[in-house]
């Protein structure tokens, strides 16, 4: 790494096979689910848009897997894999994307804007950077109530780092020394905008020192490195060392949304290491390490495909909401709702 930041860390803790396997399963599921979502979108079954995580599954799943169910997780657009690793089911993901009234967002919100706050799983609002401080507040609350040991984790892109919301929230977390892991997926583009138009710094991890937090970098295409670096950051946060900023380098191997062909992505970048498909890399790693052979992987793939297909059938059968029976009250305190005008 190019910077001389002394908070730089690089653990060598080797991830266990069990962890890699779990991560791999989430990655594979996310990839196949994304493909299905894209197909549903093209078939007109999903309105609005679908936003995919192709190429970012290793990083995302490594994070979701590193968390405990009592932790707080606020994923972002490209974190289908992390959501699954944190415990979301395929059915639940589909319910949100298809707008099912049985999903956690009850048809009111959907696609990537899904979560279950009561389970520490936060539904993002679209405004980039806005969820970071919310996670911070949850951690602060737990500290105040004497609940220790939980951490929070949240994701952002190279573009989202330019928001004032990111700055304020990371700074506040540092001041309060909150156990927060912020994972920046530097996929070198924010929609079509290349990173040179987003920041002039040499590496986004150079921001760590300015916030007084610990910084880490990871190869976002390598399941093992993601697992190690994120594991390390999570451990440090849990140990009370304050916020951890993880910057992973990778590429988005798809459009910003299914509508976008991403032809703005520099071909030369695609040919570098960060242009690798993390799922291929993971597959090879698992085979090399004799965790899974090609046949087992193919079997897993088939199994997941079946799971997704049956989930799609189920969710489509469940049907949409009844707009006339819908409860149009934005307040928890019903008596304070203004009468309909």
């Amino acid at each position: 790494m190019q910077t001389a930041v002394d908070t730089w860390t690089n653990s060598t803790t080797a991830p266990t096979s069990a962890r890699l396997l779990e991560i791999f399963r989430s990655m594979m599921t996310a990839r196949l689910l994304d493909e299905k979502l894209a197909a549903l979108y093209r078939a007109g079954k999903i309105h609005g848009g679908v936003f995919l995580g192709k190429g970012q599954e290793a990083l995302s799943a490594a994070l979701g897997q590193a968390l405990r169910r009592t932790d707080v997780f606020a994923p972002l657009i490209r974190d289908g894999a992390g959501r699954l690793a944190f415990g979301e089911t395929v059915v639940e993901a589909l319910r949100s994307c298809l707008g099912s009234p049985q999903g956690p967002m009850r048809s009111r919100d959907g696609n990537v804007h899904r979560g279950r706050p009561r389970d520490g799983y936060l539904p993002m609002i679209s405004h980039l950077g806005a969820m970071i401080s919310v996670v911070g507040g949850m951690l602060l609350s737990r500290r105040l109530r004497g609940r220790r040991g939980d951490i929070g984790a949240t994701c952002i892109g190279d573009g989202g780092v330019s928001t004032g919301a990111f700055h304020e929230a990371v700074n506040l977390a540092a001041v309060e020394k909150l156990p927060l892991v912020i994972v920046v997926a530097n996929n070198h583009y924010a929609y079509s905008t290349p990173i040179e138009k987003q920041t002039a710094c040499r590496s986004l991890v150079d921001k760590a020192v300015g916030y007084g937090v610990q910084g880490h970098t990871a190869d976002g295409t390598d399941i093992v490195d993601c697992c190690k670096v994120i594991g390390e950051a999570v451990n440090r946060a849990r140990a009370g060392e304050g916020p951890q900023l993880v910057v992973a380098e990778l590429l988005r191997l798809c459009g910003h949304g299914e509508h976008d062909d991403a032809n703005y992505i520099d071909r030369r970048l695609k040919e570098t290491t960060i242009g690798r498909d993390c799922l291929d890399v993971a597959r090879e790693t698992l085979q090399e390490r004799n965790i899974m052979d090609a046949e087992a992987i193919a079997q897993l793939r088939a199994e997941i495909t079946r799971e997704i297909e049956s989930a799609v059938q189920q969710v489509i059968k469940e049907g949409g909401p009844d707009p006339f029976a819908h409860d149009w009250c934005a307040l928890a305190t019903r008596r304070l709702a203004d009468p309909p005008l």
Partner: protein
Amino acid sequence: MSITYLNAIREAQRHLLETDQRVLIYGQDVGLFGGAFKATKGLAEVFPDRVMDAPISEDAIVGTAIGAAIEGLRPIVEMQFADFSTVGFNQIANNAGAFFWRTGVPVPLTVRLPSGGTSGGGPFHSQSLEAVYAHYPGLVVMTPATVSDAYSMLIEAVTIDDPVIFCEHKYLYYHLKADTLEPETLPAGKARIARTGRDATVVTYSAMLHEVLEVAKELANEDVELEIIDLRTVKPLDTDTVIASVARTGRLLCAAEAWPWGGVSAEIIARIANEGFHLLDAPPRRVNAKDTPIPYHPDLWSIHRPAARSILLAVRELLRI
């Protein structure tokens, strides 16, 4: 004993901290310093963990409070001035406002906005933003006008499971005093008839109540009796109380310190024109601030905002007297 509007806000917060472990105060300089207006003075000494100084980060302050509220705390955010809430606007309107509707998980957050004009405050320390927040769904917006309401409504705000925008008026902080803190029995969402009368209904809230009361006193000498409604909450709006009053008086004037376009006055008139049209004997009127930024010079400021004098003129026109 004499208690100011500001004292009432402090005492409400003290009471809340004392009686509810979940209450947390968060904002710039609210700790040992006691806040820019001293609304939290003496509280950090007693509750050091639950009265916290924040960095100058309104977006993150509100976001943090949302997170704390989701987890079951009852945070009170103090903005140093209402005007600075524009920097935290997105978190309030889009994150706090939509959260319950989207997820079913309540966000019991109170945002205190020191609002309204004072002499020499200028364009960025004088704003009344209740309309901006009331326009967004999912928020309750309170605008207490009396010492008792400042106390009781703040306590109520914190017990409400929804985000409450608590617009407290800076001019009243020191100028408004009461002998005792009578606990208010009207719940949020209910307006109060601050004065009964037969000739016209004047709907108002916050500092303007006191200007209108002055007008009523003056007109009483001419045997004109104004009925005055203090809205207390501007979202929800207690249309019923207003309509019932207009049914008695046949005339409506709204007086508010905020800018006119889309303000509380416009909303009230739109409702009464619709629901109480046949009760009106004359066109409903409004008096608002002028549609410019709020001026710095005291002499300009006192013309820019509505005051007894301009309200009196409007009432005379309404009554053709």
